[in-house]
């Protein structure tokens, strides 16, 4: 019992630290909201001129779940990548010599990313009326729940990534070779079913694909033809949850490993 308390304390304090730092950096917060809004209202609005509205829905509505996914992807990965900072500036040692299980450290870190991403995704979600969408409270709640689950899974994935890298210079490698492909091969910009086979296969092993698809399932009403969700909501949520567990286990392994 005391042991469980200790673990929960550790998770709490790791999340509290991240949140405190996040709230202190107002500019980071504002910048992180700017990116999805630029995509939504500039890229999305621009592309909607060349995508036929006969496809089922306006393009700005189609990419909305993708933009939510993007918000979560970037802020979760940013948050988890801070593990590399902690390595470089030594604070990770302070955490690693503490008498708490490595899984608690990973869960604490993943929840930090989750909270930070969730706040941003929830703010972006509130822009739906500007896109001409009509959502019920139930749909919004479901989308929020899914966002939290996706945020956790991606944050845990970010920790797995961070455990491979020693210095912050590797950040651009992660950005260009992992994050950007993950975004473009996630069904965010175009329905997965319309991709050529190799790309479709790549998209189908990308956990973000299912996360974004789950949000599509929540926000789009049935029967939207080629622009609608690619998979069932059950499958989507199943993959998101299973991948979360997988990433937490993997990351804990890597943290347990001592040179």
């Amino acid at each position, binding site marked *: 019992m005391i042991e469980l308390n200790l673990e929960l304390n550790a998770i*709490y304090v790791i999340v509290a630290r991240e949140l405190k730092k996040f709230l202190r950096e107002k500019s980071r917060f504002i910048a992180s909201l700017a990116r999805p809004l630029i995509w939504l209202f500039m890229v999305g609005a621009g592309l909607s001129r060349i995508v036929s509205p006969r496809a089922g829905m306006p393009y700005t509505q189609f990419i909305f779940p993708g933009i939510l996914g993007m918000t979560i992807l970037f802020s979760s990965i940013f948050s988890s990548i801070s593990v590399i900072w902690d390595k470089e*500036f*030594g604070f990770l040692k302070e955490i690693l010599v503490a008498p708490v299980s490595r899984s608690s450290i990973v869960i604490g870190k993943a929840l930090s990313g989750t909270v930070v991403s969730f706040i941003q995704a929830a703010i972006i979600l509130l822009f739906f009326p500007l896109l001409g969408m009509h959502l019920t409270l139930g749909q919004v709640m479901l989308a929020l729940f899914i966002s939290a689950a996706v945020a956790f899974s991606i944050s845990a994935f970010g920790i797995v990534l961070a455990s491979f890298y020693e210095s912050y210079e590797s950040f651009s490698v992660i950005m260009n070779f992992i994050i950007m492909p993950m975004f473009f091969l996630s069904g965010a910009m175009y329905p997965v079913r319309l991709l050529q086979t190799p790309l479709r296969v790549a998209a189908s092993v990308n956990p973000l694909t299912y996360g974004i698809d789950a949000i599509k399932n929540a926000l789009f009403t049935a029967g939207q033809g080629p622009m609608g969700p690619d998979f069932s909501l059950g499958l989507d949520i199943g993959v998101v949850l299973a991948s979360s567990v997988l990433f937490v286990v993997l990351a804990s392994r890597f943290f347990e490993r001592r040179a």
Partner: protein
Amino acid sequence: MPVIQVEHLVKRFGPITAVNDISFDVEEGSIFGFLGPNGAGKTTTISILCTLLSPTSGRAVVNGYDCRLEPQKVRKSIGIVFQDTTLDKDLTAYENLAFHAYIYGVKKSEVRRRAEDALSFVGLTDRKDDLVKRFSGGMKRRLEVARGLMHQPKVLFLDEPTLGLDPQSRSNLWEAIIELPEKHGMTVFMTTHYMEEAEVCGRLAIIDHGKIIARGSPEEMKGIIGGDVVYIKTRNNLKAKEEIKEALGMTAEEKDGELFLTVENAEASIPPLIRAIAETALSVRIERPTLNDVFLKLTGKEIRREEAGGADTIREEIRAWRRKH
């Protein structure tokens, strides 16, 4: 039962053997000094003892728990101040301490009081709510020591705790560290480059190229040099030499107009010596071997020499401490 036991510990990093088959024990409630030149393997040994590295072979036991097999129990028993700073610079001093307290399971009702005690202990009370990134190097160091004490560990590892501190802060910190075994029953394992600090350790080990080349109390270490040297100025060196030979059976030698002889224990030798040369003696001076002499003899390198001011205040602390015991 020693609180730290190290047996045939080896750590290799690829082709480099950082720690090469070392063994030693540290008694509970003592201050153990681990000395050695740069790259000798001190930090590597500490990293194994605090479970951040696994040994290549051999065994390390802290507080009865094997560092490799029961890391979690070892972690519960120890506190550590790393050689390089491990503070979160984007948090305040208080927040760094509070984080530490929570992650070590200190009771919520206790956290504030302990943090305040710790801050006043290292003289940082008025900087409590400042971000650590605005701290000077010395202030960061002191904050780290305070943090290591927050959870009242059984064994405290200090990897060069006073590095970069001014003489004033250094002697204050020392005063505090010296009291830990008695006041809190803590065992202190520390590395240092200052011989004044090494002097205060109950036991020392000198490590070089990953091997322990000498062990013992500071006094035993100095024995390696072969005793104290007594220098005597006299009115008549020839006469004094004869008198010494007659009374003590020892041959004094002459250097720069002074007589000198090496004796095992200067305090005990001086009264008979004075009696023998009462007529001719002008002044008597004793030179004791320092740990620096020992270090130099064993490793061929000097322990970093201390600037005069700092050394004096530390020496005073040490004397005061010795008097108390």
